């Protein structure tokens, strides 16, 4: 005979038995009033490694392992080796009907007749709705895995649940609701001597009087009732059956009533309010007794929602299916009015980590067209600025000196790039940027800040002019996506006649930098390089490029922008041509070191949410004599306020302090380090950091990580910029 293992013992079962039914047949009965309907929390167990499974809802499988949850404790977390992401199915329809009893079936039939696309869910058929979200979206678990169903309407027809008894001894085993007893009898289970209270199942009579308590040691041995005159009667039994009335199984409706969900049938009935419990456990999930509720009431928590939060009643396994009627009854007894049920929230049943992660994906980080080249060269790749980028090729210092003394190439394809054309293109850019745009000649570029309406720095980049109506803009790697929205939004708001194309993911860019950069580019065909801050079209190694002359490293530099289909060919051509120049690529680690020596800020790292151009020492990038630009009014306003903090350069002997380290002045907090590195060329640590002014003055020195730091002018290296302009 087929069998499963329960708590280390073999339990036989008949085909179609639920685990709980098989256990009952074998004489093993969990404590508490069992409902056999998935409503109560008394039969949860760990089934094949998954905890909080209701044994009454799971069919037996040969060889399955069932472990009871520890008494008074939580089951162990999965060890990580057995967890798996549940399959996800996404469906769409007009109407979801939850529950396929009489009223649910009728609702579905009527909708189908009207031509609506209907999906029905019924836990008895293996499709258990467990949540409704705005959208509308119904979450259900099924044999497929997890289902997310997007729909216009939902009908909740989930019927009603039986009220659990709350009294002394109600946690004994051998107590069943009337429907559960009927179910057991139908499956041939011998219940022995039965005592029923309330509405009994067919064929049984109830004892008279009000239920007072159950008696027994572990298992019920007697039911005690009380007559109207106070006389108690003890009824010996093997099994107690309780028929205390119904309350709507309406959690799905209560969690989504504001979303326009409809409830029908028994799920819409007025709940029976049982007599207020005087003793016993009201909420078996959170182990909340009637005395606990009274104590919380006496402390002033009289609202249902507050009672739920203060006691945690209703927050456990059954989400209030056992306790809610009794809480309402007890609060009505204490306060004189019946309060509405507490709010229900998704999900109604415990779900696994695998189900939670169904359909979830990690954030995708794009890769440049040179990603494979970097990995082939042994680069340590990392997620930087929203992209996979080479942090180092294994010798950051060597990469650094290649830039300072020789020539190096770096992948800067991640830079934001955008083409703007159209008759109003100059007008758009003039309004967007805080510097003068119209004066930029074709073939020339200009460094620009982007400010928001409050005058805070959003991003920086270049504006490059190609023609009267043609522009090429660059942005930071992490700012590109936002920049596109920013530019489009303003263009539409101002109803300007422009064309905008984001080229960030379509164009590659390779930075050729170092004193020998020009020599290297001559070898691959660039005979007439643009002057500093100029740009031109050229063929490099036979590949169409737009060549930008600028410098982020502080050395002679050219950015070669090109179609990403050509990135690998261009990269390899440069490596080949520069082999005898000791050309080597540099990673981001070296690049950040190089740029910090030049004092170039990284927007987002060195800037903060309230960084104005003045605080960043970038007043030179703002022309307040312009008639208008985004952020002008705020800039004028904030410039009137006393300067209270500023991004400054600092130098220190010894190793670089941590980025984020606190800057102390006279023993008090005075700011923090935003960027720091050991500078090989200046043989000191160089830093950028925020310092507060004291009495209108910046301190001249500070303490960082218990060492002296000197406030120093930036750039730290080549302050005249002669090397970049060479």
């Amino acid at each position, binding site marked *: 005979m087929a069998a499963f293992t329960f708590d280390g013992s073999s339990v036989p079962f008949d085909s179609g038995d639920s685990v709980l039914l098989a256990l009952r047949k074998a004489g093993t009965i969990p404590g508490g009033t069992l409902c056999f309907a998935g409503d109560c929390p008394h039969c949860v167990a760990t089934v094949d490694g998954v905890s909080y499974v209701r044994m009454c809802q799971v069919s037996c499988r040969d060889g399955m392992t069932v472990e009871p949850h520890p008494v008074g404790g939580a089951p162990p977390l999965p060890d990580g080796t057995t967890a798996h992401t549940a399959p*996800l199915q*996404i469906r769409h329809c007009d109407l979801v009907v939850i529950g396929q009893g009489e009223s649910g079936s009728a609702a579905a039939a009527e909708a189908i007749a009207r031509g609506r696309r209907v999906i029905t869910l019924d836990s008895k058929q293996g499709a258990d709705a467990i949540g409704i979200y705005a959208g509308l979206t119904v979450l259900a678990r099924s044999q497929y895995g997890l289902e997310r169903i*997007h729909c216009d309407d939902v009908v909740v027809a989930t019927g009603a649940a039986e009220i659990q008894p709350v009294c002394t001894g109600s946690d004994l085993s051998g107590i069943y609701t009337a429907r559960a007893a009927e179910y057991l009898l139908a499956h041939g289970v011998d219940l022995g001597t039965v005592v029923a209270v309330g509405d009994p199942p067919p064929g049984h009579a109830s004892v008279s009087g009000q239920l007072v308590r159950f008696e027994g040691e572990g298992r019920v041995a007697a039911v005690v009732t009380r007559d109207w005159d106070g006389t108690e009667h003890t009824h010996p039994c093997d099994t107690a059956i309780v028929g205390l009335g119904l309350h709507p199984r309406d959690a799905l409706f209560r969690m989504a009533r504001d979303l326009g969900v409809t409830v029908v049938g028994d799920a819409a009935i007025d709940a029976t309010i049982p007599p207020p419990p005087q003793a016993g456990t009201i909420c078996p999930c959170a182990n909340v007794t009637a005395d606990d509720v009274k104590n919380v009431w006496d402390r002033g928590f009289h609202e249902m929602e507050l009672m739920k939060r203060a006691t945690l009643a209703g927050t456990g396994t059954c989400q209030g299916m056992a306790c809610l009627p009794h809480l309402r009854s007890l609060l009505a007894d204490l306060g004189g009015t019946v309060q509405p049920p507490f709010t229900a929230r998704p999900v109604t049943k415990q779900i696994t980590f695998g189900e939670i992660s169904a*359909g979830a994906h990690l954030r*995708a980080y794009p890769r440049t067209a040179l990603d494979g080249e970097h990995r082939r060269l042994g680069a340590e790749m990392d997620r930087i600025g929203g*992209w996979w980028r080479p942090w180092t090729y294994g010798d950051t210092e060597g990469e650094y000196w290649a830039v300072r003394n020789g020539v190096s190439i770096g992948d800067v394809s991640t830079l934001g790039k955008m083409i703007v054309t159209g008759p109003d293109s100059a007008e758009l850019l003039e309004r967007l940027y805080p510097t003068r745009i119209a004066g930029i000649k074709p073939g020339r570029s200009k460094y620009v800040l982007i400010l928001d309406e409050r005058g805070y720095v959003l991003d920086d980049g270049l504006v490059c002019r190609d023609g009267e109506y043609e522009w090429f803009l660059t942005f930071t790697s992490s700012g590109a996506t936002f920049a596109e929205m920013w530019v489009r939004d303003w263009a539409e708001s101002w109803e300007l006649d422009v064309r905008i194309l984001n080229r960030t*993911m*379509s164009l590659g860019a390779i930075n050729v930098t170092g004193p020998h950069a020009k020599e290297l580019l001559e070898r691959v065909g660039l005979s007439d390089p643009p002057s500093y801050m100029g740009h031109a079209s050229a063929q490099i190694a036979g590949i169409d490029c737009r060549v930008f002359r600028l410098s982020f490293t502080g050395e002679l530099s050219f950015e070669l922008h090109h179609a990403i289909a050509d990135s690998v060919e261009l990269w390899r051509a440069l490596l080949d041509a520069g082999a005898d120049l000791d050309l080597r690529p540099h990673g981001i680690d070296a690049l950040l070191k190089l740029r910090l020596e030049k004092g170039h800020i990284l927007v987002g790292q060195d800037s903060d949410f309230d960084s104005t151009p003045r605080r960043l020492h970038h007043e030179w990038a703002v022309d307040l004599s312009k008639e208008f630009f985004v952020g002008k009014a705020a800039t004028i306003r904030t410039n009137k306020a006393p300067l209270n903090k500023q991004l400054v350069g600092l130098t220190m002997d010894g190793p670089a302090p941590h980025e984020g380290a606190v800057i102390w002045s006279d023993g008090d907090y005075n700011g923090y380090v935003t960027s720091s590195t050991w500078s090989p060329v200046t043989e000191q640590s160089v830093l950028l950091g925020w310092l507060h002014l004291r009495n209108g003055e910046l301190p001249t020195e500070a303490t960082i990580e218990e060492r002296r730091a000197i406030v120093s002018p930036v750039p730290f290296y080549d302050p005249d910029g002669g090397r970049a302009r060479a």
Partner: protein
Amino acid sequence: MLERLEGLRIIANAQALDAAVWPNGSRVFRLAADDVFLLGDGEVHLDDPHAIVELETGFSGMSMEPAAALDWLESTCEWELPGQRPAFAQGAVAGLAVKLWFDETEVFVMTASALAAELEERMP
């Protein structure tokens, strides 16, 4: 495997794109009112002097058998797919920005080349 596509990216005013005559045999993906990705050879004439016409190699794509594609999309696409054929649709699929072309014989899947490796990892 997703393969890099080579076409033209055309940004122009919507009326010019509506009126454009596309080269025979080309595939035209209207990404937005002002935005077309054109796969195919031939010249394009547009009534917009400020149109941006650029070589576009920033997309990668692959053709899938319709049943297999729909099976995959059923577990990765939160929005409702078009029922008519042919049809073009775009949105998040498996957490990535994807463009889909549906006809009777294939579902053509496109994404930014920079995300192609990620998308492949999320495909069956």
